Structures are given as structure tokens and as C-alpha cells.
């Protein structure tokens, strides 16, 4: 039998669109018989944007997944290309593409515009951009680690990591005035300098995290429960990662030394000799499972601390922007013409902005954004293959997609309908943890 369309009885979904794709059973699948469709989304309870995943399962095993995106599409590029906003207003928009990587997009965007218009960035401004983006990486990776612990049913660890994460938010607030959406980069420099009295606070945070690092590694990597739940789960082979163009920690966990900061250094990054981190740096052979993704992200926290330390020590003196007066900047940008590409290694991977400016126009002629999750989404297909339903939350979260847990699932089996809300899925996940602890 094949799956029925569950939309008629689905309380969250409207009676429009949404159809579970029916397909012919072929080969081994036909021989084995029944598979069922398990639709998930688009409304989920915790921190994530809406997405819809339809799993095809045989018993407890996943045989296929269908991903539907587009629920959070806001048409940001369209608004940037529409006449009526100037580039600084568009920068404001670029900051709101993502609230977690809220400095990665502006950094890539300002670089693209600077290349198109031929604007130089003073060295001090480059260093400040690097410091803010590395602080953001620490906050994002700790956020992810906490969410991953939650998906495993290890809530103590969620609260522990989110508690230590507050420290980096305090530093970001001290430096930029905001916990999220820092508004630091502007075309030709940065908006705020790091004052001499602020250095001790950043140093204090670095010392705080240095002291905690060993504890965090211990809590995540040397914990038998975490290891049992993540080893061999959601494997992304190096070859698959390469073929599917995975980026960021998702690719690095599979052993690919792929990092924009290493491959195409930009801003002040050439000074720091960044080297892409893979599980080999922790003395492991890369497998590409969820455990390796935790290893890579935690080691990257240490790498970011090193970069911030070096940046603070070697901070050049001088201007923080080549256009101190905003009207002069806007007048220059209005006259500018050309196209430019900007890139940055966001916490989730490579982000690219492409812009084209026309002389006499205040807004952009063309704006294209490529976010890291877009590249990583395809790696879900091999990762979900032949996994258990109880592992869906942690595998979905392992690519750090801005989508982390789920709302409810409908299982239609032989005419009998049952609702599988997120709690039941999480309970399955937690029960598996307990089973393995015994």
C-alpha cells in the first residue's frame, strides 16, 4: 500500500496545496512492500524557521525524504533591487536575512559593494570586523551545541551551554550595543571603534572561555551517552560531501579542509593563517557523522578564541572608516558603477553576495545572496538514508540549518490515523538515550 494524503485531518495545515508525493514502488522496495509518508512541519515549536520535511519510512527506518522550503521567503533581494532604498537602508535589510549570522551577511554584502565601487577599508576596521565575526561564531556554535544536546534529550547540557553563551553576548553588547544584529560593518569601514577601556572585557571573556573549553569538550565528547547517540548517525561520506557541495562545518566534519578563510582569505584574515579544522585535529579519522560535527564546531570555538587574541594583540591604529561623513558616502556610492562579489565564512559555511551598481542609481541593480544552509540542505538526503525515526531531530539539527526541532507528525497506516507531535518524537529520542545508557 502507499501513503495517503493526510491533509484532510491535519489540524495545522490548511486544506490547500501540500500533497505527499505518491510514487511507484520499484525494485527492493516493491519486494519489501509497505512504506509510509511521515510529513513534518511547517510549524515547529522551538527555534527554527518553518520548513516541511516528508519522510518515507519502512517501519522505523527512513527510506527517503522530501524537503519543501520557502515558508520563510521574504523577498529581501527584491526589496533591495526595488528603487526607493539607498544602500545604507539595504545594509539594514541585509542584516535581517538571518538573526544568528547577523554580521556574516553584512560583511559579505559590504565587501561586494566595496569591490564594486572601489572603496578601501582601513586596516583597523578590518580587524574590528574580524573580531566581531569571530565572536559571533562562538555564540552561534555554542547555541548549536545546546540545541543538539536538547535534541538528544540531554537538557542539562542545553542549559549549561546556553548559560556560558551569555558571556559572549555580553561582550557583543559591550562592543556594539546590541545582543543580536550588531550593525557593525558599513561601506568603507565599521560604525564603532573598540575603545581602550573595552579591551579588558574582551580579554576577560577569552580567559573565561579558555577555562571552560576543556569542560565543554569533556561534557560533549567524552560523554558515553552523547557518543552512543551520535556515533555512526547521520553519516555524510567525504565523497558525498564533495559531490553535494556541502560547506562549513558540515563539509569539514567529513574531512574536507574547506574554509573560505583559508581558501580565499579576505579582510584581515591573511594575517591569522586560518586553517580549516577537521576531526583529524582532534586525533580522529573523519567519519562525517553527528559526533564529528560536534568535534569540529567545538574546536572552532577554540580557533575563534585564538584569532580574537591575535587580533587584539596586533590591532593596528588609525581610522575606522574611509568615509566618516554618511552623506559623502551616499553621494560616492550613487556615482559608483560596476559589479562585485563578497564572501565570508559564516558559522554555518560560506556566504556569498553578488551586487551590481549602476551610476546615478541609489539602490542596487542586481543583488544575489547565497546562504550556507542552501548548500547544506542537499546533504540531508544521504544523511537521513536508512536512519531511525528517533534520530530525525539530531540529524536535521546536525547541519545547523536554522531549523532544529519539530512540531507534529502524522502517520497514516492502513486507514488508522495517529498524531505524532514533537513531544512523541522527542520522547522516542529520549527513550533511546535511556536504553543505551543501560
Amino acid at each position, binding site marked *: 500500500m502507499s501513503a495517503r494524503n493526510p491533509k484532510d485531518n491535519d489540524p495545522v495545515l490548511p486544506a490547500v496545496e501540500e500533497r505527499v508525493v505518491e510514487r511507484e514502488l520499484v525494485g527492493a522496495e516493491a519486494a519489501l512492500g509497505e512504506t509510509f509518508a511521515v510529513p513534518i512541519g511547517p510549524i515547529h515549536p522551538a527555534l*527554527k524557521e518553518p520548513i516541511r520535511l516528508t519522510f518515507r519510512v519502512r517501519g522505523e527506518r527512513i527510506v527517503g525524504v522530501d524537503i519543501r522550503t520557502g515558508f520563510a521567503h*521574504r523577498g529581501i533581494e527584491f526589496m533591495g533591487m526595488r528603487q526607493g532604498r539607498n544602500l545604507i537602508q539595504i545594509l539594514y535589510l541585509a542584516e535581517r536575512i538571518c538573526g544568528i549570522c547577523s554580521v556574516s551577511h553584512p560583511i559579505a554584502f559590504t565587501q561586494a559593494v566595496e569591490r564594486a565601487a572601489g572603496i578601501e577599508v582601513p586596516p583597523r576596521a578590518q580587524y574590528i570586523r574580524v573580531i566581531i565575526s569571530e565572536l559571533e561564531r562562538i555564540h552561534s556554535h555554542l547555541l548549536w551545541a545546546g540545541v543538539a544536546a536538547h535534541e538528544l534529550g540531554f537538557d542539562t547540557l542545553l542549559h549549561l551551554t546556553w548559560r556560558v553563551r551569555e558571556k559572549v553576548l555580553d561582550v557583543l553588547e559591550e562592543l556594539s550595543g546590541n545582543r543580536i544584529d550588531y550593525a557593525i560593518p558599513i561601506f568603507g569601514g565599521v560604525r564603532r571603534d573598540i575603545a581602550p577601556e573595552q579591551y579588558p572585557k574582551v580579554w576577560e571573556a577569552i580567559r573565561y572561555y579558555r577555562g571552560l573549553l576543556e569542560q565543554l569538550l569533556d561534557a560533549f565528547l567524552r560523554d558515553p551517552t552523547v557518543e552512543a547517540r551520535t556515533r555512526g548517525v547521520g553519516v555524510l561520506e567525504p565523497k558525498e560531501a564533495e559531490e553535494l557541495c556541502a560547506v562549513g562545518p558540515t563539509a569539514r566534519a567529513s574531512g574536507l579542509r574547506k574554509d573560505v578563510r583559508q581558501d580565499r582569505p579576505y579582510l584581515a584574515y591573511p594575517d591569522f593563517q586560518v586553517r580549516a579544522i577537521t576531526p583529524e585535529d582532534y586525533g580522529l579519522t573523519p567519519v562525517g557523522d553527528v559526533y564529528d560535527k560536534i568535534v569540529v564546531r567545538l574546536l572552532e570555538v577554540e580557533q575563534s578564541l585564538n584569532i580574537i587574541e591575535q587580533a587584539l594583540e596586533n590591532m593596528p591604529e588609525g581610522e575606522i572608516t574611509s568615509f566618516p561623513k554618511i552623506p559623502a558616502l551616499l553621494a560616492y556610492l550613487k556615482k559608483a558603477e560596476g559589479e562585485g562579489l563578497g564572501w565570508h565564512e559564516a558559522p554555518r559555511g560560506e556566504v556569498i553576495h553578488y551586487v551590481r551598481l549602476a551610476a546615478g542609481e541609489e539602490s542596487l541593480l542586481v543583488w544575489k545572496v547565497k546562504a550556507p544552509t542552501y548548500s547544506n540542505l542537499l546533504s540531508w538526503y544521504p544523511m537521513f538514508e536508512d536512519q531511525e525515526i528517533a534520530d530525525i531531530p539530531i540529524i536535521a539539527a546536525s547541519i545547523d540549518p*536554522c531549523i532544529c526541532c519539530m512540531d507534529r507528525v502524522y502517520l497514516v497506516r492502513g486507514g488508522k490515523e495517529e498524531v505524532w507531535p514533537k513531544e512523541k518524537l522527542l520522547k522516542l529520542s529520549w527513550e533511546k538515550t535511556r536504553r543505551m545508557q543501560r
Partner: protein
Amino acid sequence: MGLSAFKRALWVFHVATGSCNGCDIEIVAALTPRYDVERFGIRLVGTPRHADVLLVTGPVTRPMAERLKRVYEQTPDPKAVVVVGGCGSTSGVFYESYNVVGPVDRIIPVDVYVPGCPPRPEAIIDGVVKAVAKLEKLGAKA
């Protein structure tokens, strides 16, 4: 009223309608140890059917509008709706987008607006406390 005046635990359901994750992580930050609203009995639940308060983030994209309405209808009465963030309150920077049908009060009735992009966790907690005041007034009438 102070937080100690809570008569019952308050369960909250969070709907993201195309938000940028900024407000969403601040909501989670409000639940974790620094702010720890669970000590007052406020907790995030996984389904609107268990919720007293809906926390809505995001400017409401076209595909999410119908679903937001469904979630509102599923939430049992008495209920309160709190909009978290500037884009949910006024559409904010996304006001001219073709795929945004918000702000939230065009789709469902709203009781409390928490402005900010994103609001701090303290502001979100304050918004939820204001929603409690409304719920208790409704409770007194019934």
C-alpha cells in the same frame, strides 16, 4: 502586578512566521539559566492545544498566514497573543515585500506588542506578564 501573583503555570507556544531567528533565539535565551522563566512556571510547549499564550515572531509570509490562523484557532480559550519583534508588530523593514501579508494583527487579534529588533529577553518576559494580566481579567469575568 508582579510575577509572584501568578495563579497558575503559563504555557507558551511559539510560532515563527518567517522571522529571521533573532527574536526566536532571544525567546529561547529567556528560558535558559540567565533569565530562567521556568521558575515562574512559564514554559514552551510543543503544540498550540496546550498553550495559554501564543508568541508570534516574524512578518507573516504568504504561506504562513493560513497556518497562523489555524494555530490561533487551535489554541483553547482563554488565550492571549503576544507579538515579539518589530516586523511582526508593524512589518518593519519588510513592509514592501510581495511575500509578506502581515503585520500579525491583520491575520489574528493581538493583545501585546513587544517592539525591538530583536527585543531583549527582559522585554519578552514583560510582554508575557502583560498577557497574564489580560488572561486573569478574563478568568475573573468567567
